[in-house]
């Protein structure tokens, strides 16, 4: 078992208006994994991240990163944690290289070391050509890649990315995510990746925590999540007919099949919820009664549905 790097215990943040933005959060993230924090906007992801870095104080609970209390000793934590906020800001009047050198020097590197490191990282994130261009002239995607270089310049053990792909075009996004995975594998960096964009999380993360209204609803890899979610044992079947018939007629047509819980017309298709897997029986019954079946599917759950379901419930 890998070592725990980030340990969050009973973390709670209550703002002035008595709103619990983060509510009794417990989470352990292990060394070298890419962990996804998934949740809709305003779920408390960013607030949690701010507390991890000591940029805001928790109302209750503790956060330790590599054994260091993040609230008591934020400076020591910031030595080993790189943080890329959503929509990262750089000094527009300085070049990309100057911005990186400044960050490196704040981390205690000498000027020559800083320049060397900065140039190396700029190459790594494909910004070599733009190193001496003012950041004000950078595109959104370039800024974000510069942000990644900025995070890496302190040789972090942990990097925290808060909605890092916001506003990058799809191809740039793909590149960016690949870069993150590559880094995590090569340099053994633990990555905490926050997003409301589920496909990205699915693409890069080893484990995922779903976060709604400040509460952790589920945690684990995608398989575990779907098990946790659908443990009520229902099966879902979808079908569509060529004929235009009402729900009542179908209900009567399927009366002979046991275990049907619910039948619903969802615009294009009928959705059927049952206790048993009755997909085949439904198909046979409908055909036997003279209907022309256009579509029949037993629904499998991916992250999409998991996400939908959690967020709708919440």
């Amino acid at each position: 078992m890998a070592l725990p790097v980030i340990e969050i215990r009973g973390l709670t943040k209550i703002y002035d208006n008595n709103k619990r933005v983060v509510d009794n959060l417990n989470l352990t993230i292990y060394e070298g994994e890419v962990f996804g924090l998934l949740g809709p906007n305003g779920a408390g992801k960013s607030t949690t991240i701010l507390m991890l870095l000591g940029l805001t104080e928790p109302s209750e609970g503790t956060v330790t990163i590599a054994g260091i209390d993040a609230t008591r000793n934020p400076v020591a934590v910031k030595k080993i944690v790189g943080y890329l906020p959503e929509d990262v800001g750089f000094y527009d009047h300085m070049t990309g290289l100057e911005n990186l050198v400044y960050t490196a020097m704040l981390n205690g590197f000498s000027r020559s070391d800083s320049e060397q490191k900065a140039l190396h990282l700029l190459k790594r994130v494909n910004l070599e050509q733009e190193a001496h261009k003012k950041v004000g002239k950078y595109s959104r995607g370039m800024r974000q890649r510069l942000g990644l270089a900025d995070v890496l310049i302190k040789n972090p053990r942990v990097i925290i990315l808060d909605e890092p792909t916001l506003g990058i075009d799809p191809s740039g996004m793909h590149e960016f995510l690949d870069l993150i995975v590559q880094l995590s594998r090569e340099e053994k960096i633990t990555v905490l990746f926050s997003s409301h964009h589920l496909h990205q999380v699915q693409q890069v993360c080893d484990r995922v925590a779903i976060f709604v209204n400040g509460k952790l609803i589920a945690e684990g890899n995608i398989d575990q999540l779907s098990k946790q979610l659908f443990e009520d044992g229902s099966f879902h079947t979808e079908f569509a007919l060529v004929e235009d018939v009402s729900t009542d007629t179908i209900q009567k047509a399927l009366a002979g099949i046991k275990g049907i819980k619910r039948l619903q017309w969802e615009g294009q298709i009928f959705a059927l919820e049952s206790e048993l897997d009755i997909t085949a029986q439904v198909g046979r019954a409908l055909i036997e009664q003279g209907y022309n079946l256009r579509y029949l599917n037993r629904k499998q759950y991916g992250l999409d549905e998991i996400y939908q379901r959690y967020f709708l419930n919440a």
Partner: protein
Amino acid sequence: MLKRKPMFVKSISDRLTLTWQQIKNRLSNLRVVQSREATFLVALGVMVRKEVADYLRSWRFLILVALIVLTCIGSVYTAITNMAKALEKSNPDQIFFYLKLFTVSDGTMPSFIVFVGFLGPLLGLMLGFDAINHEQNRGTLSRILSQPIPRDYVLNAKFLAAYLVVSVLLLVLSLFVMGVGMIVLGVPPTAEEFLRILFFVVLSTIYVAVWINLSIFFSVRFRQPATSALAGIAVWLFFTVFYPLLLSFILKPMEPSEMASAVEILKYEKIRLLLVQLMPNELFSQATTTILTPSIRSIGPLTIQQIYGSIPAPLPLSQSLLIVLPQVIGLIALSLICFILSYISFMRKEIRSR
């Protein structure tokens, strides 16, 4: 005798190298103990350097400098053209040519110290009003604060950089005025004049520091740079325009009649002085006029008994400094209050990315 001299020199040099070694050792010990603090200080130095560079490259600073240099030239010009008149008068300050350069005016153009008193606050406000909120709005603050530096370094660096820039600017200007004086008057300044002018520069930087700190406080407090700039200008206007009005409104009814006794007049004067000294600009002008006019013996009222028998001669520098000490402490205290306020509101602030 001749042979012993080198011996003597050698023993001194031995002793010196020994102590130098010891000092070095001690320093390196200190370095080990405080290595953590030392790396932090390096970071502070890096930040201050960047801030100073930013100021020097910014248009607004160049505009302010141009404005100040022009007014400075104007006031020095009037001072020089009126120098003959100022020196004619049989006053005890007539030997201080150089101090006159800073204080004399013919009424059409204010003197140098009045200009510094007037433009200093603007300079301070302009340097600080967007110190923190601008960085926060651009999203650079959260990036800088996620680096391993104590949070207060951001405030400290902003203040130190602004203070450094102001100090250099005022020092250069004063030396420039002295240089012009040397060319025009043809006499070098005396040591005392030079020291008095240096103290004037120090005083001015302390005064501008008050406004830098005030504007930094507003920049922490208000999210929009425009709001914080306006708040700063409002405070400045209040003290230069409205507070004196308010004062005359309050003091008018209390004014003693011509027939009033000395005790009553003294009481009134004390109240007046107290109320007037609440203004930072008044503290500054009292302190600078005292420093640059050696014959001023007291800022408050003096009784006939106190003056009786005194010779109307200039005070030595140390005595002038003693007189202005309360004003200086007052200005430093104001600065500290503003700094502490910005500290309190900044240290526990939640820093969102944008």
